[in-house]
């Protein structure tokens, strides 16, 4: 029964090379249609800028972070390309998960750690990734993947720094994953 479970589980995901080609075509479409790559962390930045400027309009002048955002984005901070794209990601992920029967509210972790430990690590990882994505001007999507497609030197450097560091630290976090 286990063997059968394994096969069904494996066949439920796309072949990774087919998935990669499709991902590449989506990224190509973004560049040809909109002249830009994909992204994710920029949408979070938009959300924070929108919230902060709503609560405290004077922050537009006092915060260098918001000033920098405003120099490249006029108008409503939520009416940006990345916000619409990330809303789409939620819809697209949901559709794929629904078709494959993967919709389920759960905390995913290996059996040897508790759900709480997994959630604390997820929170800590998110904080680091959020901070790093601002410093690095984009995350795995916006800086690494999209940067590589347009042969950006910075994109390749960020990609190597992300994956290199994660590999280098993998030993210390192994008990959480294997």
């Amino acid at each position: 029964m286990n063997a059968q479970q394994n096969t069904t589980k494996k066949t439920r995901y796309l072949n990774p090379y087919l998935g990669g080609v499709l991902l590449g075509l989506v990224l190509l479409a973004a560049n040809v249609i909109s002249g830009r790559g994909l992204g994710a962390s920029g949408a979070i930045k938009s959300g924070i800028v929108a919230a902060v400027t709503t609560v405290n309009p004077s922050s537009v002048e006092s915060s260098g972070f918001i000033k920098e955002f405003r120099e490249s984005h006029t108008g409503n901070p939520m009416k940006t390309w990345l916000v619409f794209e990330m809303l789409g990601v939620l819809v697209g992920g949901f559709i794929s998960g629904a078709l494959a029967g993967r919709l389920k509210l759960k905390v995913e972790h290996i059996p040897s750690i508790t759900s709480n430990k997994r959630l604390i690590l997820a929170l800590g990882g998110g904080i680091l990734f959020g901070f790093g994505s601002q410093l690095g001007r984009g995350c795995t999507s916006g800086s690494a993947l999209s940067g590589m497609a347009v042969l950006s030197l910075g994109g390749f450097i960020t990609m190597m720094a992300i994956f290199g560091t994660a590999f280098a630290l993998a030993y210390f976090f192994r008990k959480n994953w294997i």
Partner: protein
Amino acid sequence: MGPFAVNELISENTNLFLAFIIGIAFGFVLESSGFSSSRKLAGVFYGYDMVVLKVFFTGAITAMLGLLFFSLFGWVDLDLVYVNPTYLTSAITGGVIMGAGFIMGGYCPGTSFCGASIGKIDAMVFIIGLFIGVSIFGAGYEWWDNMYLAQFLGTPKISESLGLTDGVFGLILILVALGMFWAADWAEKKFSREEY
């Protein structure tokens, strides 16, 4: 000729609508490739599941080749396509911090939204972390803006920096990727795990 939005062949609102459609396709491909699972994503760092490496590099190469050919055919003007600027210091330090976040949290921002969309609570908590991390960066911006803006190199292409044409660099990248895919298959056999 592309890019359509930059050349004003489509309106700003159409561009935003298409961003939503592109996002749906992005999310669908990520989820159906298994990127909604932190254990599948983390597999690349322990060798038991190399799907991240395979999808990521196939995707980058497909888009890169597409852009090079489209440019050759005159379908897209690469001078009008956004190229990420290179600030050497922050590209490295930002990447290092993101790498630490990746191995700790098991997601990156795009994949966490993907995981959250199918109900992964760990992904939702990761997103809360993202908001906190971006807010910390914004609140303390004056403390690290020197590092953020240091060593600005403009928007160099990696091919130029290495003294290669785009085509030759692309070919080398494909050969490197094929080598990595071969190594990935070896790793998946050596470090395979039954059920996760």
